[in-house]
């Protein structure tokens, strides 16, 4: 193997310059819980590793314009331990809590989970239904990208060479809003989603759903937004009839593979069941907020 070089720049500009200027294969290192495994398995052979954790913009959780901004490389445990953020966005916490063990979450980040682009990444459907906006910086400047526009397939993203996801903005939310993420796995911990479902909804003062977002993980080549699922909830009291339509829409959106974790038929069925359950949790949280 040729020399693998390591750089840990302290500014975004320096990181972008390193990534964009690398002739060989450059790899961004956030928490490293996927990158190091892939490195040692020989799945990719980078020439340069750019560790972004020394850049202040990438780390930390701050209030911004009534919402929250979370650095893309902030560790899962720092997110889970942040009481105010966790209270505002419990659906995100549902997703982050499921990323590996405690010791994996000591390093693993939402930015890494997104950019590793596993179709089964647990925080991604939660980010998508939260309406999280990724701030992306690259050689051509900064752009704001809805999270759902970043993954394009297994291990593939829409990011250009030299681009980095810097942070996620969670916009200010109306009262009576709540979100939830649920996944199905054969074991309760330390497993990969067979199906994952995120639901986020907002109620008016009468309990009618005025806004909803639904997303699915592990049932397609990338996490999916389910517009029909959201439409099934909006304008309803999230009653049984609405939940039935939601379940149908979630199942209909699936285009899964058969693998050792689940068959196509099973994933399609479970997506509907989990969508209903996640919506009920989101509903309860919305009523209480």
């Amino acid at each position, binding site marked *: 193997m040729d*020399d693998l070089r390591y750089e840990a720049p302290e500014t975004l500009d320096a990181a972008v310059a390193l990534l964009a200027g690398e002739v060989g294969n450059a790899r961004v*290192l956030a928490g490293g819980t996927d990158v190091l495994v892939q*490195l040692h398995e020989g799945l990719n052979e980078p020439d340069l590793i750019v560790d972004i954790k020394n850049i202040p913009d990438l780390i930390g959780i701050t209030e911004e314009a009534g919402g929250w901004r979370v650095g893309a490389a902030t560790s899962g445990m720092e997110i889970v331990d942040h009481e105010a953020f966790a209270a505002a966005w419990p659906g995100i916490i549902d997703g982050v809590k499921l990323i590996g063990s405690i010791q994996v979450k000591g*390093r693993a980040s939402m930015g890494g989970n997104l950019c590793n682009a596993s179709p089964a990444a647990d925080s991604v459907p939660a980010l998508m239904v939260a309406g999280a906006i990724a701030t992306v910086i690259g050689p051509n400047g900064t752009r704001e990208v809805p999270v759902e526009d970043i993954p394009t397939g297994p291990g593939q993203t829409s990011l250009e060479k030299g681009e980095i996801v810097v942070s996620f903005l969670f916009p200010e939310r109306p009262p009576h809003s709540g979100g939830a993420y649920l996944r199905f796995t054969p074991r309760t911990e330390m497993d990969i989603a067979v199906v994952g479902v995120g639901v986020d909804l907002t109620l008016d003062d009468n309990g009618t759903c005025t806004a909803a977002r639904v997303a699915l993980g592990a049932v397609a080549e990338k996490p999916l937004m389910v517009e029909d699922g959201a439409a099934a909830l909006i304008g309803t009291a999230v009653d049984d009839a609405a939940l039935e339509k939601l379940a149908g829409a979630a199942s209909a959106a699936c285009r899964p593979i058969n693998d050792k974790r689940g068959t196509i038929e099973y994933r399609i069925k479970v997506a509907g069941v989990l969508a209903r359950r996640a919506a009920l949790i989101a509903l309860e949280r919305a009523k209480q907020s």
Partner: protein
Amino acid sequence: MARNHVTTTVNGDEYEFLCDTEQTLLDCLRDELFLTGTKEGCASGDCGACNVMLDGRLVCSCLVLGVEANGKSIETIEGMAHGDELHPLQQKFLELNGLQCGICTPGILVAAKALLERNPDPTETEIRFWLAGNLCRCTGYDKVVRSVQAAAEEMRKG
């Protein structure tokens, strides 16, 4: 090879070493600093045998590059006992047979210590969830959990 110069604090002592970029923190602790208490199990973040504290966070040292330790503070199993005086967790693991072959034990002890520092009185469920990332193929976990509970009780008495 691209040798990186690293200065880091391990169990309160400053160390300097050179490492290749590919070397993990686990490799560096064992092969450069000869601190072999930290074990390699899976080398992929699944088993917890290599657990250390990195700037106060429980991590798998197999998932950290050695060079990332530059300027950081690390605590390993070697820092757990004070001289001949064992930490209450170590003592209870011995008394209650919380180990058999012992390969997973340093990682479990480091992880359990991190739990008890956050939560001095965890429930059995909380202990089992916290230690879900620490695999033991001998004990069946029951004795591990009981040892942690006994150590917690001892530590609460002060």
